[in-house]
């Protein structure tokens, strides 16, 4: 059985439609028109939204001016308040510092009976003690007492001599770190 061959031709048959000018005209009336309309809509939309955005911007400018003026009016107060805060911070920082009188009192409280101190010097994190003792046992006791206190560390005996004035006495020098 012979089948009929169907021919499909999508190209336009009319002469003018097939010509370049015809195609151009048809494109201008269809696709180009839609493109122009969509572009115009977008541009018009943007143009209209500008009115709204400009109005909003202008309102915000007014608000900014008012609020800036309000803050400027209080600038002197702000300055004095900030100075006050800084002063309080300084006071707070210094209140936290270690008190040397407490440290020295602690050291003195640990001196055994047969030991007497000649000098104590205290710096931020260290102290140096110079004293005389009737016996080495007294010095050992003093060091042991200092070691027992958690506030002191790295206690070292730097010097141990007989006193020039009284050879029965021992002069010692202790260095320690304060926690």
């Amino acid at each position: 059985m012979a089948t009929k061959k169907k021919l499909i031709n999508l190209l336009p048959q009319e002469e003018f439609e097939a010509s370049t000018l015809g195609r151009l005209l048809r494109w201008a009336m269809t696709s180009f028109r839609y493109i122009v309309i969509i572009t115009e809509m977008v541009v018009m939309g943007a143009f209209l939204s500008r009115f709204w955005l400009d109005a909003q911007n202008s309102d915000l400018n007014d608000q900014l001016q008012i609020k800036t003026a309000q803050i400027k009016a209080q600038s002197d107060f702000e300055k004095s308040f900030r100075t006050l805060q800084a002063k309080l911070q300084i006071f707070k920082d210094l209140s936290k510092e270690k008190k040397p009188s407490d440290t020295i009192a602690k050291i003195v409280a640990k001196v055994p009976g047969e030991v007497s101190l000649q000098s104590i010097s205290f710096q931020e994190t260290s102290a140096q003690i110079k004293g005389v003792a009737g016996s080495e046992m007294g010095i050992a006791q003093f060091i042991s007492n200092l070691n027992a206190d958690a506030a002191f560390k790295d206690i070292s005996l730097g010097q141990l001599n007989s006193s020039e004035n009284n050879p029965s006495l021992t002069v010692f020098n202790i260095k320690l770190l304060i926690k």
Partner: protein
Amino acid sequence: MALGWRGQYLRYKEYFLNVVVLYKQRRDLKMFLEVILSLITITIFGLFALKPTALTIISLVKEVNEKEKTISLLDQKIANLDTASSLYSENSGVIPLVDLAVPNQPQPEIFVGQIQAVASKNAVQVLGVSVGEIILLGKDDQAKKKEAGLKPLSTGSKEMTVSISISGNYQGIISTARDLENLRRPIKIDAFGINTTTSESGNIIVAIISGRLPFIQ
């Protein structure tokens, strides 16, 4: 033979003419004319109409958003200032005390007076008071302080260095040191030394206290 731009012109003219000839000869190529034109139009409109419009709108929206943020920050600052103002009013009675504790000027004369009062209370003798160099204007010499192994007292504060030499019994010296530490005007004691010397009249205890007092300008 043409040289330079003429040669290039001839070459590309040939290509272009061939394309036109090819377009005229092949009917199927004509089908793409609309597509090509549409693409060209969209590109031109996009570049010269839509892009500037979009850029303008985007920049405006950004500007509005930034201003809104700034306004909210300003609102917060105004609220904070109101809170500060009410706090200031509530505590107005104690604010002069803060000014006494950390004055706006070094005021060494007031401090010396306080030392004398403390010494007299604890029955110790003030052997000497020396006040170090004070920077009244400009920045403190931080390098000098670092050399001396001193940490700055607090950010933004200036300092007056003092050295006090006192003599008396041990209890009096310790009490004087305690009173100095607890003065309304805070002092940072950098060094404290007690030394005992024996003389004909007996033991003499001398203490030297070195410290720094803050002030703010």
